[in-house]
């Protein structure tokens, strides 16, 4: 199981933001994405998750291995913690949510509607969703937003356990999670807006 990226160009609104990106992520590895705001980290993660097509280059990964954790947690305020999590567990065909609840320290909150959770608790529930997907490669976009120090530690433990278990994680984050991780700074790959465009880029024909 390996995620491999070669010569990848990703675009936002038709304009390339990152160009010529190449890296690989094997089982047991954590790769941390760094780069200033707006540098294209989210766009890269969305492209890897298959939500948008790459403009050029190749992404190779085994099918059905990706679990994507976005900015938004996709929680339904009217459903309880259990119901929210159970839904995703069923969608991914796993079904066991107890382990995920206890690892994210949500057991005491399990019957509370998501509407009554604090921001940090919501985030923890969002991360617990990753645990129930059973997918080996996690793509995480700023997972620690609104988490307190203890919860960040909890999350780091989860990632560590996941990786030790043969999983892998690609995390866009600004804080140090205390993980043994490679760091990929996307800044050198930022697309030069004045450079000649790759063949087939959206607006190339109009310039």
């Amino acid at each position, binding site marked *: 199981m390996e995620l491999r990226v070669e010569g990848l160009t990703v675009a936002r609104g038709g304009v390339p933001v990152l160009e010529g990106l190449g890296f690989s992520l094997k089982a047991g590895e954590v790769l941390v994405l760094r780069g200033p705001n707006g540098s294209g980290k989210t766009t890269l993660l969305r492209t890897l998750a298959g939500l948008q097509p790459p403009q050029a280059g190749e992404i190779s990964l085994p099918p059905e291995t990706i679990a994507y954790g976005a900015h938004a947690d996709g929680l339904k305020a009217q459903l309880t913690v259990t119901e929210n999590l159970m839904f995703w567990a069923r969608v991914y065909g796993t079904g066991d949510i107890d382990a995920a609840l206890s690892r994210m320290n949500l057991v005491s909150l399990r019957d509370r509607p998501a509407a009554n959770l604090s921001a940090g608790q919501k985030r923890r529930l969002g991360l617990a969703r990753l645990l129930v997907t059973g997918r080996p490669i996690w793509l995480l976009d700023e997972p620690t937003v609104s988490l307190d120090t203890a919860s960040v530690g909890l999350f780091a433990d989860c990632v560590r356990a996941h990786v030790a278990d043969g999983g892998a994680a690609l995390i866009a984050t600004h804080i140090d999670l205390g993980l043994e991780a490679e760091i990929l700074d996307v800044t050198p790959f930022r697309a030069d807006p*004045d450079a000649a465009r790759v063949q087939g880029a959206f*607006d190339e024909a109009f310039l």
Partner: protein
Amino acid sequence: MTTTRTKQANDRWNWLWEWANPVKFMSLSARALPWVTAITVVTLVVGLVWGFFFTPEAAKFGSSVKIIYVHVPSAMMAINIWVMMLVASLIWLVRRHHVSALAAKAAALVGVVMTVIALITGAIWGEPMWGTYWAWDPRLTSFLVLFLFYLGYMALWAAIEDPDTAADLTSVLAIVGSVFALLSRYAVNFWNQGLHQGASLSLDAEENVSDVYWQPLVICLVGFVALFVLLLLVRTRTEVRKRRVHALEMRERMSDA
């Protein structure tokens, strides 16, 4: 998972797809414009003047019948333009040629104006003919539905910011809309026939019109087609330029960031 959107391989239709390159389109259309303009002016002036002033008054209808020279061509174009938009949308979805999507966008406004002209001239003509400006005649109703389709299509274009997303979504709408437009046509026929038996109010132009009226009508039809091509070229050129401005602005914004 490999996606590379490069130009399609050369094939024997390549001469046609060349048109779809915006730069090429701009130069070709610039050269074509004077000719199309000339054809439009000549055919429209000849057809309309002949039709309005040099045809005999019809015994039953008086001179009101002469509105046929605007009504029939505009009605015909209203439908044909939608078909053209459908084809352009399909080309965009399959081959991703920008000019095709922009041509569909450019055609919509011409199409909606033609539909409105057809509806208004129909109402004006309907008054002396049937004694009413509006009847829920199958044809009139179909045009009203077509008008709504045009409005929805244009509103969707206007509502979406990203030009390529807009092109994709409007193309999907054009395809689905065409199916439902056909269904509506059939439904409307069925519905009105169900209300008053037989006796359609509509006058079928081709059958009842003698040669005296027919010849200028053909010229008018050609004139309207030429007018559409002219407007389409001008508007597509405008859209291409707008896209160019948009692309330059995006590039500017990205280099500032």
